[in-house]
């Protein structure tokens, strides 16, 4: 019995030492981790507020103030069966009209794919202004993970409200062929099958995430 107590005591001391060391490292790195996470967030938000010529439609100072004002934690606020939308939703004023920036996830090939997108509110509905796929780390390199390339992401935007009536689809699901990239966009279709051969699940996940955000926005934003 005495042996057990002694052993338990020794083990406890080691665990306490380990816990103490970890607590120390955690306190040191905590701030840095928060900064990194925030930096990644800014990067994505800034990226989706840039137009094709690389000009920001909302000024950088404006972005920073709006983003730092919103203190909501990330949590799921909407789900449509295929995609999940997360808070916070940022709202900016731009020369094009009110812009909403939000994020959503959908299931890709290996895990969740996270998309940040910006929508401009127009008289006839929401226009998909830009997207960034921020997390595709579980997708297959060389196949699904190609979604990280900016040229491929550009196939998804911009799309006018009229073409988004039924949401966005990838060309394989829409059963069309022979369209050019721009012609496809006019029909709410992202033409990706020529650049992402062999990977249909990942772009479909991106489309699902975008559609979830669209339905969330249409359900009425406060």
């Amino acid at each position, binding site marked *: 019995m005495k042996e057990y107590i002694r052993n338990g005591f020794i083990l406890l001391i080691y665990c306490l030492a380990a816990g103490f060391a*970890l607590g120390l490292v955690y306190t040191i790195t905590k701030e840095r981790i928060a900064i*990194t996470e925030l930096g990644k967030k800014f990067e994505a938000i800034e990226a989706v507020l840039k137009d094709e010529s690389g000009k920001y439609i909302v000024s950088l100072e404006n972005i920073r103030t709006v983003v730092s004002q919103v203190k909501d934690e990330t949590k799921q606020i909407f789900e449509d069966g295929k995609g999940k939308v997360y808070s916070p939703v940022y709202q900016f004023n731009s020369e094009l009209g009110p812009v909403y920036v939000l994020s959503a996830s959908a299931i890709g090939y290996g895990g969740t794919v996270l998309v940040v997108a910006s929508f401009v509110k127009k008289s006839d509905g929401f226009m998909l202004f830009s997207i960034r796929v921020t997390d595709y780390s579980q997708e297959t390199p060389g196949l699904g993970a190609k979604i990280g390339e900016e040229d491929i992401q550009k196939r998804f935007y911009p799309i006018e409200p009229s073409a988004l009536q039924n949401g966005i689809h990838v060309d394989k699901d829409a059963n069309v062929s022979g369209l050019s990239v721009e012609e496809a966009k006019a029909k709410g279709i992202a033409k990706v099958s020529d650049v992402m051969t062999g990977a249909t699940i990942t772009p479909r996940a991106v489309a699902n995430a975008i559609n979830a955000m669209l339905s969330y926005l249409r359900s009425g934003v406060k």
Partner: protein
Amino acid sequence: MNSLKEFTKGFLRENPTYVQVLGMCPTLAVTTSAFNGLGMGLAATSVLALSNVVISIIRKSVPKNLRIPIFITVIATFVTILDLLMHAFTYDLWKTLGLFIPLIVVNCIIMGRAEAFASKNGVWAAFLDGLGIGLGFTGSLVLLGTVRELLGNGTVFGLELWGKAFNIFVMILPPGGYMTLGLLAALFAFIGLKRKQRGEQK
């Protein structure tokens, strides 16, 4: 001379992957590209070297029957520290390696070295042993990652070699991992056999 031997034995003679067949899970899972292999290898090496040192320091004050839980605690502590540091400073790599960073804890190489070497040897030797075995592991991962990335994607470390001209997609998918490792292991066995034959002839 002796310490040099402790250091280099992990490269070939006691290579953890091809000779000892340890630490297979990260070997197969993260080697979809050479860079990921390198990242994983270096992460495991740092944990291996540091935990070897600490275990060697405390080896005399650890009761025999408490060895395993205490070793696990030490290793898990270093892994968590590494996880936090990578989250803070190498965000993208941290994202890609994902679950396999905390899983370094159960990498049999680290526990194996703690049991077989660090708990019986001095601090300096344990450090060199950890570093050597770790670098041997890194080398295997980079080799595997390079082959898979080259055949599957036409690139090495992201540099285009022949690009899209010749790609075997399956190499980057899970079956390709098993396949490449199997063929490389056969190659090493073949080289080993040839060497032995030559030795016998002499």
